[in-house]
């Protein structure tokens, strides 16, 4: 590890890295909705999808002073 290794970008994402992202980030539909959508037809039920919250993070992490140990 003390060799001066060049940091290489991983070309194939590891499963952990993928799971880290795909399970609860991006556009998330309530878990129970996911399940019920499998059994219902929105049109039939006259169910309506609505945006409960929308957040984008377009700032630099403010954790610089407090280190990456703090979850955000």
């Amino acid at each position: 590890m003390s060799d001066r290794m060049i940091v290489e970008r991983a070309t194939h994402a590891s499963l952990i890295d993928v799971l880290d992202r795909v399970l609860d980030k991006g556009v998330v539909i309530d878990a129970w909705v996911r399940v019920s959508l499998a059994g219902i037809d929105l049109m039939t039920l006259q169910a309506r999808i609505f945006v409960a919250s929308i957040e984008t993070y377009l700032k630099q992490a403010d954790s610089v002073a407090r280190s990456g140990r703090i979850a955000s």
Partner: protein
Amino acid sequence: MAKTAAKKPSKSTKREFARKTAVPAGRDRAGGGPVAAPRGKLERVKVPAPAAAPRPDSEGKYVYCIVRSEEPLSFGPLGLGQEPADVHTVHYRDIAAVVSNTPMVVQDPTRENVLAHQRVNETVMQKHTVIPMSFGTVFKTHDDIIELLRSAYDAFSDVLSKMKDKFEFGLKVLWDRDQIVREIEDEDEDIRRLKSEISSQKGSTYFARMQYGRLIDAALQSRSERYVAGIFNALRDVSVASRSNKPIGDRMIMNAAFLVARDKEQAFDSRVKEIGQQYEKLTFKYTGPWPPYNFVNIRLKLERAH
């Protein structure tokens, strides 16, 4: 589509019902549909699989991501399923959902499924800005997808503009804790003195050991903060935004995501490599480009009309 519900004989199972209603719905809109035939005028189309006709059990639509496009797009057989499903788009105004036909079941996040989800996103984002869906979103019909796009149109459109031409990169930083402890012991006189006290003392070393532990922890914490702050600072001017997630495990000191503009990708890349050389004691796990998972969070809910 809704009207057929009442007409179906009651012995028909839900599954059969879905099969009969959902598939035709997918076909008639947006031109492409599941039977995406090669069409000369489409841009950015990889030649679709010739045998991509919907199989009888392809009832629902799995959603991978949202893009901005008025033209139907086709990405070929990349989707979930043992035989990778054809990936195409469903449109509403100028946005589209990237979908594939899938059995109407709750998909488990197995290795194959999760990697297929990621593979589609990776492919789409080569040429399009994407808002990634989290894993496992299945809608029953083509019209339900349109309803999704319509309901969340403003949110999707706004976020697509904000994320335009930006990618996410992941950077995890690990250290060899024992090596750092040895370094701290070499550098810090108090700690060195305590350590030799502990090893030479005959009686109880309880207090010396407690104090040693406290000093080592504090020194590790401040060293990790210094490294992490240095790394964030070095990447500040080549990224648009950054997020700091909780490090996983003992060895990780930083678990961050960076949002990087397409035209800064090279600069970001070389900067990460410079940092890697500068901090030679640290191990870097650098991944990407990813869809901007860490920078977008849109929560959708379902409400029943009365």
